[in-house]
């Protein structure tokens, strides 16, 4: 590591190209162990998965636009919602967050040259890619893709009810992507524990990195449980065991316990990275330091801790769970989440807000996630859940949450795109995309809440007996197509940008964290130089020596960045 104290310049960049080595083209794609290349591979692959899963969603909504739709058959509909949910959760949301942007940004944010285990990191990607192909192969085999929902409940997933190869491909895909996630978790934790730059204490790490650390730990706690559950499911299907088989003394509800013991932490494995992204974006575009840094960190840890004890709120209606325990624990999670919202608003309060596309998406994330959170509180109450379980109220609730994640993903992409490519995404297209995505998400989910209260069940291809549900369903479909259109805008923008000039420079947003200290894109092994790190805003401190971040624990003037700077020069 080098010890000069200069921001990165174009002159350095030339040097970077000389230093670039290793194979290029397809061989580079196959053999690279650079976290930036792997992170980009992840990002692009997961966005393709978002488009595929989104296409399934468009078909679903087309089918539901009329009470007796004939877009797909009833059997195809079962495959569609299963694969839509599976692709979105297993192949888009998680990999995008912890394999894509985190892989790219975490090492740079802490001043590291790469992930701790670069070859393991590459293996993660190959397991993810092959897992994705395996899942989609389901459509190509006799009997079709898996059709028992993304949760694979026993006994729907047993050999009798799901005899085809599609179900085994689904299990195989989850084994591959599960190990991929575990390896990424190992890498994130080891990198953050061992490869931080001098001065980068734990409580100076960017909040995005903190969130990825906690996400990594959650992955390590949760995913092995799912993998074990899947192995037992496979054994039941092929090796004659009866673990989930009630007819032979097995316990079907065990699958639900195992699945949700992974499944609820997974909700936070998906959400925490996006919390982290907006926590980076909001202060930068409000020209303020983050409000409540330590509160943010402790809220993240508290969310992770509590998330391991709430799984059976997905099982209230089974009649086998301790209702008060799970209801109470679920309510507790709203406290740290509330702290986060308070701090996000506090970070904007009184700031000079710049409404860039990234900032708009970040605010859209807050609003949409808040709606999902509030309806989640309704569902956490067993009497209310008994009434709404397995209706469109639930579908609308978790789509408020996951659409917030998609909006958050866009916030991250618009924010970091200049860092990754040196080019800005077009802001005008970005803002148009934002309004279509944000309003589309609202128009798509709101009718769902009402339909759920009227009693429309989920996973149903026709509602012939209830033609009066059609208006709300049509409205919901219009929202869905607005979301689809917004995705097209994004693809156009990304493709168009590949021809625009590289004007970003190292620090276009006047941002806070280390990734904005190096060149855009960063060189091999990330840095030619690092600043002294004396606060959670090292890049800001460097560019604004007279307006240093007075941090929570740093009131000693000799620790001020400008003093430190004078000392090293």
């Amino acid at each position, binding site marked *: *590591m080098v*010890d000069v*104290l200069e921001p990165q310049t174009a002159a350095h960049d030339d040097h970077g190209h000389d230093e670039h*080595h*290793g194979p290029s083209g397809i061989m580079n794609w*196959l*053999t*690279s*162990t*650079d976290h930036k290349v792997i992170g980009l591979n992840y990002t692009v692959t997961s966005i393709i998965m978002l488009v595929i899963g989104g296409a399934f969603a468009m078909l679903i909504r087309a089918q539901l636009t009329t009470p007796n739709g004939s877009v797909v058959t009833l059997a195809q509909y079962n495959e569609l919602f299963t694969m839509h949910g599976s692709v979105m959760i297993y192949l888009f949301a998680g990999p995008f967050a912890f394999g894509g942007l985190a892989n790219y940004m975490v090492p740079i944010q802490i*001043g590291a*040259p790469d992930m*701790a285990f*670069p*070859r393991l*990191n*590459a*293996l993660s*990607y*190959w*397991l993810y890619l*092959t897992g994705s192909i*395996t899942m989609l192969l389901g459509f190509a085999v006799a009997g079709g893709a898996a059709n028992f929902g993304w949760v694979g409940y026993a006994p729907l997933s047993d050999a009798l009810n799901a005899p085809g*190869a599609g179900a*085994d*491909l689904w*299990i*195989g*895909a989850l084994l*591959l992507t599960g*190990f991929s996630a575990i390896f990424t978790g190992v890498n994130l934790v080891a990198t953050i*524990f061992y*490869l931080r*730059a*001098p*001065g*980068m*204490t734990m*409580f100076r790490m960017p909040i995005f990195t903190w969130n990825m650390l906690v996400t990594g*730990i959650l992955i*390590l*706690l949760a995913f092995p*449980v799912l993998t074990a559950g899947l192995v037992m499911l496979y054994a039941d299907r092929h090796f004659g065991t009866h673990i989930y088989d009630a007819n032979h003394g097995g316990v079907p509800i*065990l699958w639900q*316990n*195992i699945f949700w*013991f992974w499944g609820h932490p997974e909700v936070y494995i998906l959400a925490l990275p996006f919390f982290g992204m907006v926590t980076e974006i909001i202060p930068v575009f409000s020209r303020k330091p983050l409000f409540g840094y330590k509160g943010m960190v402790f809220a993240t*840890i508290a969310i992770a*801790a509590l998330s*391991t*004890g709430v*799984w*059976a709120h997905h099982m209230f209606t089974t009649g*086998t769970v*301790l209702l008060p*325990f799970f209801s109470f*624990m679920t309510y507790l999670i709203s406290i740290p989440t509330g702290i986060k919202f308070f701090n996000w608003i506090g970070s904007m309060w009184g700031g000079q807000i710049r409404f860039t596309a990234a900032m708009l998406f970040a605010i859209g994330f807050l609003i949409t996630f808040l709606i999902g959170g509030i309806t989640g509180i309704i569902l956490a109450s067993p009497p209310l859940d008994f009434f709404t379980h397995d209706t469109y109220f639930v579908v609308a609730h978790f789509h408020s949450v996951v659409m917030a994640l998609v909006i958050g993903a866009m916030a991250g992409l618009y924010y970091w795109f200049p860092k990754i490519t040196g080019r800005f995404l077009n802001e005008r297209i970005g803002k148009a995309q934002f309004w279509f995505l944000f309003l589309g998400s609202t128009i798509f989910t709101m009718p769902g809440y009402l339909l759920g209260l009227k009693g429309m069940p989920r996973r149903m291809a026709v509602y012939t007996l209830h033609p009066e549900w059609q208006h709300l369903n049509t409205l919901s479909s219009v929202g869905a197509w607005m979301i689809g259109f917004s995705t097209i805008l994004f693809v156009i923008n990304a493709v168009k940008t590949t021809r625009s000039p590289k004007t970003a420079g190292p620090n276009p947003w006047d941002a806070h964290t280390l990734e904005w200290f190096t060149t855009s894109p960063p060189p091999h*092994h990330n840095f030619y130089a*690092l600043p002294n790190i004396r606060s959670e805003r090292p890049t800001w401190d460097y560019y604004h020596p007279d307006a240093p971040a007075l941090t929570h624990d740093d009131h000693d003037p000799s620790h001020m960045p400008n003093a430190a700077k004078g000392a*090293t020069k």
Partner: protein
Amino acid sequence: MKTEARLLIGLGVFVLIMGIVYGIWSKELSGTVMLIGTGILGIFPGLYYRYWSKRMAGRPEDTDAPVDAGAGFIGSFPGSSIWPFVLGMGCWLMVLALVFGSWLAVIALPTITFALAGATAEGRRGGAASH
């Protein structure tokens, strides 16, 4: 290293206590086992970090060290390697063997062995492309 240890032990102890309360209250086995197991999974590595944090001097990343305190060798980072790809393909074939028949394992297992051997040899050499 202290903060790292506290984080893991804190999480582990919390989940462990939750598991005990849950077990006594619900008398439901699977959740109790998973919670207690998860708690231990946090405490174990946490104790390991604590052990080391007591025995080693403060690392530059845990203090107000100047940035050149990190100069020198920090690890070897292979620039590129074909083995993760080969290993990934082997694992994929192995999973496909679960679906389409064990004959695929005849290709999968040698591929995995070959890749592991290749990766190990590359690691021993310090990695052909590493620096």
